[in-house]
C-alpha cells in the first residue's frame, strides 16, 4: 500500500463533498448520496487494513456515479471526473504497492479512465438513459430574487436597481442565429389575480388528458425562436421556469399550465437544465378561454382610468378597444425610467397615467392591463424575460444570455377568435431599453475580461448540456433503428458484444501501455526477439540473464551461436557500458533482425529442432 493512498482517498472525499454541496437536500436520491458520503467518510476514518480501504475506494466510485446521475451539468461533471480520477488513483495506490509516487499514480489512473472511455461510449449510446434522475431536481430553497416574483406591485417601488446577476441561458440547437429581437419574450409567471394594487400569480393545475386520447397534432412553430429550446436556469425559487410558450418539455416534472406557465413541480435551489421540443402539448394555453378572474377589477380605485376605459368599452370589438388603447398610449408622453418614485396609495394608476407618466415595465403592464379590464377585455400581466444578449462563444453554439436586468412584464389580452395576444405597452414609452438596444448585442470590446470568460464558460456549459440532453431516448431509438433495422430484438446481443469488444480493446490498450512503460526501444526489440524464440518453445527462466539464456539457445541451435553472441554482446554494451550510442542501438536492432531472420529461415541443424526440449535437458 502506497503512502499516497490515504491522502488520495481523503482528497476524493473532499471533492465528493464539494459535489454534494450543490445538491438540493429535498430529493430522496440526494439523501441517498449524502448518506453514502457520510458512511464512506466514517469508513475511511476507521479503515486500517487494505481490504477496508479497498471498500472505501469502491464506495467513493459508487458515490461519484450517483452524483453524476444527479448533477449532469458541465461544472459538476468536471468535478465528478476529477473525483473519479482521484478515487481510482487511491485504489491504484492500494493495489500497486509502495512503488509509484503521486505522479505515476495519477498517470496510471488517467490511463485507466481513458481506457474505460470506449465502454462508457457504448453504454451511453445504447443503454436506456436515466433521464428522470437529472430532472427530478430539487425542493424549495431560496426566496424570490430581484428579477421576478410571484407578486408584482410596481406602485410601491420607487427605484429599481439593475442587477446583472445571471438568470438563465437559452440556446436553439436547430435555430442557428439569434432570434429577432421582437420574438425574444420568454414567459415565466402569469399574474391574473389583481386587488387594485398588486398582481399575483395563480396557477390552477392543467387538466391531464384522459388516457387513450390521441395527442393533438403538432402545430408548426410560429417563429424560428420557437423550435427546440435548451434552457439553463439559475436557481430562482419560483414555481415556474421560462420558456417561449411553445413546445413540449422533455422532463416529466415540468408541465405547461392552462395559463401558459411552465410549472416546475420541484422549485428549488439547484440549477436546472431542461429542453423543449417542437412537439406541442395537447392543450395549448393560447386558445384556452379566459376565466372570470381575467376581468376582475376592484371598482372605484382609479376613477380617471375607469372613465377613460369606459369610453373604449363602447366600441364594438375587443380588437378595436385594444387599438384605441394603443393609440392613446402612443399619444401620451410616457417615459421609461427605473426611478419613477413611489405612487400614492390613493389612485396609484391614475397618478401614473395622468400625472407622472414615468415608470418601468411593471407600471406599463399593470396600467395597461387594468385599462383593458376596465374596458371589458379579458387581460392579464405576464412576467418573464425579454431581450437578453446574444453570445457567440469561440467555436461553440450561440445562446441568449439573460440577466436579472432582463426581467420584464407585459400584458396579454384575450381577443375573440385570436386567442391570447401579447401586448407590450412598455414598447410605446420613450426610452424603452429594448428599442434602444442594438439588434445583435454589444461587441466583445465592451465586456470585461471576467464577463467574457464567464460567457465562454456558459457556452461550454450549453454545448455540454446540448450533448447529453440532446441525445435523448428518441435519438437513441433512431440510432438503434439505423444500426439494426428490423432486427431490434438483437439489441441486447449487440450491447453485450459491443461491451465485450470495447472491454477487450481497453484491456489490450492498458496492457500495451504497461509493456511500453517497462522499456525503451531497445527492450521492446529484445522482447520481440524473445517472442520469436518463445514460439520455438524457448523462453528465459525466471530471473535468468541474457548471456545465460543465450548460452542455452546456443546449446539447442549451435548454428545460431554467432548471431546470438553478436546480438547479446551488442545489447549488453548498449545497456550497461558507459558509452551507449544511437548508432549502437541501431546496430543492436539490426543484429536482432538478423538473428530472427536466421531463426525463421530454418538455418538450423535438423536434429536440434525438436520442439520444447532444449538440448541440455534431453536425457
Amino acid at each position, binding site marked *: 500500500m502506497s503512502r499516497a493512498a490515504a491522502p488520495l482517498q481523503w482528497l476524493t472525499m473532499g471533492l465528493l463533498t464539494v459535489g454534494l454541496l450543490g445538491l438540493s437536500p429535498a430529493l430522496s436520491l440526494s439523501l441517498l448520496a449524502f448518506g453514502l458520503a457520510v458512511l464512506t467518510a466514517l469508513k475511511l476514518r476507521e479503515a486500517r487494513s487494505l481490504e477496508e480501504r479497498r471498500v472505501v475506494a469502491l464506495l467513493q466510485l459508487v458515490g461519484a456515479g450517483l452524483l453524476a446521475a444527479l448533477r449532469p451539468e458541465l461544472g459538476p461533471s468536471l468535478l465528478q471526473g476529477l473525483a473519479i480520477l482521484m478515487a481510482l488513483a487511491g485504489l491504484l495506490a492500494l493495489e500497486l*504497492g509502495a512503488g509509484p509516487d503521486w505522479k505515476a499514480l495519477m498517470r496510471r489512473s488517467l490511463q485507466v479512465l481513458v481506457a474505460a472511455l470506449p465502454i462508457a461510449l457504448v453504454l451511453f449510446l445504447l443503454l436506456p438513459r436515466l433521464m428522470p434522475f437529472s430532472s427530478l431536481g430539487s425542493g424549495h430553497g431560496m426566496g424570490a430574487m430581484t428579477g421576478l416574483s410571484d407578486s408584482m406591485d410596481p406602485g410601491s417601488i420607487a427605484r429599481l436597481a439593475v442587477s446583472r446577476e445571471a438568470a438563465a441561458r437559452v440556446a436553439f440547437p436547430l435555430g442557428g442565429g439569434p432570434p429577432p429581437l421582437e420574438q425574444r419574450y420568454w414567459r415565466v409567471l402569469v399574474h391574473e389575480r389583481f386587488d387594485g394594487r398588486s398582481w399575483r400569480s395563480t396557477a390552477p393545475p392543467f387538466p391531464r388528458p384522459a388516457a387513450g386520447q390521441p395527442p393533438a397534432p403538432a402545430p408548426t412553430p410560429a417563429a424560428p425562436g420557437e423550435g427546440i429550446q435548451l434552457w439553463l436556469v439559475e436557481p430562482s425559487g419560483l414555481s415556474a421556469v421560462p420558456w417561449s410558450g411553445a413546445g413540449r418539455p422533455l422532463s416529466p416534472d415540468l408541465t405547461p399550465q392552462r395559463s401558459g406557465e411552465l410549472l416546475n413541480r420541484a422549485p428549488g435551489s439547484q440549477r436546472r437544465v431542461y429542453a423543449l421540443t417542437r412537439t406541442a402539448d395537447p392543450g395549448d394555453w393560447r386558445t384556452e378561454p379566459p376565466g372570470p378572474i381575467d376581468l376582475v377589477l376592484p371598482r372605484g380605485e382609479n376613477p380617471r382610468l375607469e372613465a377613460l376605459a369606459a369610453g373604449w368599452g363602447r366600441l364594438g370589438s375587443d380588437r378595436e378597444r385594444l387599438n384605441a388603447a394603443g393609440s392613446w398610449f402612443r399619444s401620451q408622453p410616457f417615459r421609461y425610467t427605473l426611478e419613477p418614485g413611489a405612487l400614492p396609495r390613493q389612485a396609484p394608476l391614475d397618478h401614473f397615467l395622468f400625472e407622472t407618466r414615468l415608470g418601468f415595465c411593471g407600471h406599463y403592464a399593470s396600467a395597461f392591463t387594468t385599462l383593458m379590464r376596465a374596458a371589458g377585455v379579458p387581460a392579464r400581466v405576464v412576467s418573464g424575460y425579454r431581450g437578453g444578449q446574444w453570445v457567440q462563444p469561440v467555436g461553440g453554439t450561440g445562446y441568449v444570455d439573460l440577466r436579472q436586468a432582463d426581467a420584464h412584464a407585459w400584458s396579454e389580452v384575450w381577443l375573440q377568435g385570436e386567442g391570447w395576444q401579447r401586448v407590450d405597452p412598455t414598447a410605446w414609452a420613450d426610452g424603452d431599453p429594448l428599442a434602444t438596444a442594438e439588434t445583435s448585442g454589444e461587441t466583445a470590446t465592451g465586456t470585461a475580461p471576467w464577463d467574457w470568460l464567464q460567457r465562454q464558460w456558459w457556452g461550454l456549459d450549453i454545448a455540454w448540456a446540448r450533448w447529453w440532453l440532446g441525445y435523448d431516448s428518441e435519438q437513441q431509438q433512431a440510432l438503434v433503428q439505423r444500426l439494426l433495422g428490423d432486427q431490434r430484438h438483437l439489441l441486447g446481443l449487440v450491447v453485450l458484444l459491443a461491451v465485450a469488444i470495447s472491454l477487450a480493446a481497453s484491456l489490450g490498450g492498458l496492457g500495451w501501455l504497461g509493456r511500453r512503460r517497462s522499456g525503451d526501444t531497445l527492450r521492446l526489440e529484445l522482447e520481440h526477439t524473445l517472442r520469436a524464440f518463445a514460439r520455438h518453445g524457448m523462453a*528465459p527462466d525466471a530471473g*535468468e540473464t*541474457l548471456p545465460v539464456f543465450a548460452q542455452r539457445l546456443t546449446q539447442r541451435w549451435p548454428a545460431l551461436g554467432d548471431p546470438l553472441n553478436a546480438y547479446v554482446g551488442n545489447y549488453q554494451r548498449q545497456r*550497461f557500458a558507459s558509452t551507449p550510442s544511437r548508432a549502437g542501438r541501431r546496430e543492436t536492432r539490426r543484429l536482432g533482425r538478423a538473428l530472427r531472420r536466421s531463426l525463421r529461415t530454418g538455418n538450423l541443424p535438423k536434429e536440434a529442432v525438436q520442439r520444447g526440449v532444449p538440448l541440455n535437458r534431453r536425457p
Partner: protein
Amino acid sequence: MISAIGEVLLGKEHQVRLALACLLARGHLLIEDLPGMGKTTLAEALARSFGLGFKRVSFTSDLLPADLTGLNVFDPGAASFHFQPGPLFSQVLLADEINRASPRTQSALLEAMAAGRVSVDGVSHPLPQPFLVIATQNGLDQGGTSALPESQLDRFLMRLSLGYPPRQAERALLQGEGLRPDGLSGAFGPQDLLELQARCERQHCSAALLDYVLDLLDRSRSQPAQGHPLSPRAGLALVAAARAWSLLEGREHVIPDDVQAVLAAVCEHRMDGGQRGESDGKLSQRLQAGVDGLR
C-alpha cells in the same frame, strides 16, 4: 593468479574468485564450514599472493579485546606508556573460529573492521591498508559457539562455504599434488592491490544495472516471508562485489550476471539471519528468480 591460488585450493575456483572479489571490493570475508575444509589455506593463499602481512588469531571463549587490539605498556626507560599493537595491526587477519569468542571480543573486532582504526585509551591508531579480515566460523550446531548477531553479520561483505572438493580434486589432494600456500610467489604487491581496489570502484554501473539491484532490494523487502529484508548496506555491498566480479571477468562495466554471481555470497547471510540450514542459497535463488534479469 586465480589459477595459482587454485593450485593451492584444489577444485574451488568459484570460491577463490569470490574471495578475491571480496578482497578487491575492500570487504571482509566470513567463511563458514566444517573443520578441515581448507578455510585457513584459502586465507593464507590470498594474503601471500598479494604479499600482504598475515596474522592469525584463534578465537577462544576467554579471548579479550585487548588481546586483539594491543594495549598501552609502561616503558620504564622513557617513563611513559607506549602502544604495543596487537594482531589486529596486520593487512590480512585470519580470525579463526570467531564464533567461539565472547560477544564482547567479537564486537571489538567488528568495530575495527567497520571503522578501519582502533581506539585504545582514547587514542586512535589507524589500521594498515589494505585491511582484510577473513573470519572463519564453524557450523552453529557445533559445541562451544555463540552466534554472531545479524547486525555484525551485515559487516561481512560475503559469506562463503567451501564444501567438499570434487572427487577428482580430492584425489589430487591425496596424491599430494596441491601446493602449500607458502609456495606462492608474490607476483603482486600490496600497492597493486590498492590500485586494483581503486580500479574496482571505477567500474561502470549503468542506470539499468542499478535498477536491477534496486529491484532485487525492493523484492526482498516486499516479501517478508522470504527471509530478512536487505538493508541499504547490503545494496552497497552487492554493487561493490559485482564491480569486483566484473573486473575479474575483464569487463569495464557491470552486467546482471555479475550481480547474480555474487548474490548468494553477499546476500544469503543477511537474509537468513545467520541460521544457515539445509537450504543454503535457497533464499537468494528465490530472490533472483523473482526479478527480471534480462534487462
